[in-house]
């Protein structure tokens, strides 16, 4: 692993006592270490959130099951959703951004290393706070334990009257705290990208990963803060007697929905755009061609960022907005599919005419394309608000968003793991275990989430701890649950791969994939200072230029 001293090849450096090493990790401000901390904490919460999902799936295996009580079930789905979005997806993507962005722009570190550390620890603290609710949520009213209001905590369910005790406060505070961490990281990413690019790296020569993290960070600044504001209002209601969402005093439950979804919708784009970034780096390398249509990819991403700010009420089609409002949000929601579709076409265009190598990162990427396409299309279905009046709040929506988050985001994250693990650790992940991981997870994923659309069509609402027999939902739910367990096994294979390869994996060298961005020009793992001399670039693929001096990219851009 990287040390803080200058690497002298062949030097005998005595091993450091573990207390020292721990102290280094706890006080680090190095973007690479913070990246790893983000990713490691996200993996921890992934396992916890996954266990919560398995508990849910066991309970739903057949109708009128009694595995857990309704109260526990309601806490499970609340914690599962909250954990996965805020303490798995966001941290893992911030972690990769932290690790990769300075390397890809030829910088020494992020612009504000101490803010970086502070933001990570805030996020992690938020996660700990949320889970402390299992112990401390009882409060004075004994109605405690973990929050059980759903990850949206709709008003007035989140109000004191309906959620006594402190369980719901843990939800609010944990997200408020980690939200501030996210804002810190976003500010850092933007400042780093705008100010610390190496000479020659004009803004239209940055790798697409850097572009997309820039867009994502900008969205974080204006998307997370509405949630923070709404949560402050909720706390004022719960503790200072405020009436923001107090319907008995004339307050509006719908206002909470608007504030939540003004956060909630851009949030999912915040999650997917870094995954687009991974795809835009990995697919070209394993197709042996540059990304098809770089300027269009940038434009489409910026377009998505803007349009996605105008679609939020498609989560509210059933609440009784006027037909004009429903039509407006139908239009904007369908419109945001256009730049998204363009990106899918560009990735296919990248593969077209290439020489595709089916290494594990590429397998996950191809699956991503297939699954993200389907997820996008089910999204278009629900964009048609009358169709949504049937599909909303049912298992069809649950299937759709898991298709995006697991089939899209998680698959892209796995691809990123297999692609950059060699850079981070200096060892290759096992291809054999990687393929086992991939196929097991693919089968489990499809078994669960393809089938899950059907109970939605058959009228099964979401967030129910049990269901009636005779509606045709039993067998389907059983299959869904089986798929979940197969996915769990695949995750275990993945974790085993991570651990085993760390000790036994083949040495990676600087550039195991024959790639073209700056991070592959330095050692694996990189030295603490990243670049011994500040690189100068003349095109979007500086290493391609170096490897092919007879045909550099700079001639074509």
């Amino acid at each position, binding site marked *: 692993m990287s040390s803080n001293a200058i690497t002298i090849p062949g030097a005998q450096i005595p091993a450091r006592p573990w207390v020292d090493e721990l102290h280094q990790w706890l006080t680090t401000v190095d973007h690479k270490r913070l990246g790893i901390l983000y990713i490691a904490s996200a993996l921890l919460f992934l396992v916890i959130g996954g266990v919560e999902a398995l508990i849910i799936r066991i309970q739903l295996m057949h109708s009128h099951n009694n595995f857990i009580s309704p109260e526990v079930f309601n806490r499970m789905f609340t914690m599962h959703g909250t954990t996965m979005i805020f303490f798995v997806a966001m941290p893992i993507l911030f972690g990769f951004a932290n690790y990769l962005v300075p390397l890809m722009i030829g910088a020494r570190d992020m612009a504000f290393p101490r803010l970086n550390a502070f933001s990570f620890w805030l996020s992690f603290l938020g996660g700990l706070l949320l889970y402390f609710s299992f112990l401390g949520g009882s409060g004075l009213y004994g109605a405690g334990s973990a929050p059980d209001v759903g990850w949206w905590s709709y008003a007035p369910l989140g109000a004191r009257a309906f959620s006594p005790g402190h369980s719901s406060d843990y939800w609010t505070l944990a997200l408020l705290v980690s939200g501030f961490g996210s804002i810190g990281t976003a*500010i850092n990413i*933007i400042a780093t990208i705008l100010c610390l690019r190496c000479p020659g790296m004009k803004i239209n020569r940055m790798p697409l990963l850097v572009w997309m993290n820039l867009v994502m960070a900008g969205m974080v*600044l204006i998307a997370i*803060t509405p949630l923070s*504001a709404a949560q402050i*209002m909720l706390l*004022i209601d719960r503790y200072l007697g*405020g009436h*923001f969402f107090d319907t008995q005093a004339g307050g509006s439950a719908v206002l909470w929905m608007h504030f939540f979804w003004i956060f909630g919708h851009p949030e999912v784009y915040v999650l997917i755009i870094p995954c687009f970034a991974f795809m835009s780096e990995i697919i070209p390398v394993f197709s042996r061609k540059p990304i098809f249509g770089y300027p269009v990819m940038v434009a489409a991403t910026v377009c998505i960022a803007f349009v996605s700010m105008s679609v939020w009420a498609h989560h509210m089609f059933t609440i009784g907005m006027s037909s004009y409002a429903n039509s407006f949000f139908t239009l904007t929601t369908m419109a945001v599919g256009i730049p998204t579709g363009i990106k899918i076409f560009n990735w296919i265009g990248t593969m077209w005419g290439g020489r595709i190598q089916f290494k594990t990162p590429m397998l996950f990427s191809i699956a991503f394309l297939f699954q993200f396409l389907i997820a996008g299309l089910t999204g278009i279905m629900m964009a048609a608000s009358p169709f949504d009046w049937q599909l909303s709040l049912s298992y069809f929506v649950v299937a759709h968003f898991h298709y995006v988050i697991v089939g899209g985001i998680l698959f892209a994250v796995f691809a990123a793991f297999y692609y950059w693990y060699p850079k981070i650790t200096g060892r290759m992940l096992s291809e054999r275990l990687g393929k086992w991981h991939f196929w097991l997870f693919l089968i489990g994923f499809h078994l669960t989430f393809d089938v899950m659309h059907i109970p939605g069509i058959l009228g099964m609402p979401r967030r129910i701890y049990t269901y009636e027999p005779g509606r045709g939902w039993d067998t389907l739910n059983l299959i869904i649950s089986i798929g979940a367990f197969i996915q769990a096994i695949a995750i275990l294979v993945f974790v085993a791969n991570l651990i085993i390869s760390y000790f036994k994996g083949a040495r990676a060298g600087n550039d195991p994939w024959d790639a073209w961005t700056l991070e592959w020009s330095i050692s694996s793992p990189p030295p603490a200072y990243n670049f011994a001399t500040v690189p100068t670039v003349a095109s979007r693929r500086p290493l391609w230029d170096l490897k092919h001096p007879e045909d550099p990219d700079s001639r074509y851009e």
Partner: protein
Amino acid sequence: MAGLILAESAIFTIFVVAYLFYLGKSITGPTPSEVLETPIFYTICLLSSSLTIHLAAKALERDYTRLFLVFWLLTIALGGLFLYGTAMEWHRLIYEHGLTISTNLFGTTYYSLVGLHGFHVTAGLIMLSVVAIFGFTGRVGASQSGRVAVLSMYWHFVDAVWVVVFTVVYVFGR
């Protein structure tokens, strides 16, 4: 700082939206026109503090450290005066008109919005005071003018928010 300002603007926007949405919707209790008095003097104080902080930053750029300190302290004083004015107003509203955060929708949204702004003013004053302390001990010179400029950006933002809040609450909302 630009990033932070962007994020904070979003938070304030949500509180302003809530304020505007709930205008006229209170079921009981005092209404804005019944109880609000336009705080013109204190507003002038706060807005002038933008001028003084600007002058302070400009002075520091040219390494006029004593002039910088004078304007800087003036800024703190004007900001402090603004907070005093807010406190007086709240005292009057609570004790003379019985308007608290839990009285009705107007109370909730008013105290939240003005309070959130006041909180940001307070945080700003703390930071300004820290710089003042460093200034007195001779540690602030022309080479710190970049950092001082970033802090004064924050202060200008706080003033700009007040312009919006003032317009929404005292002009439009009555």
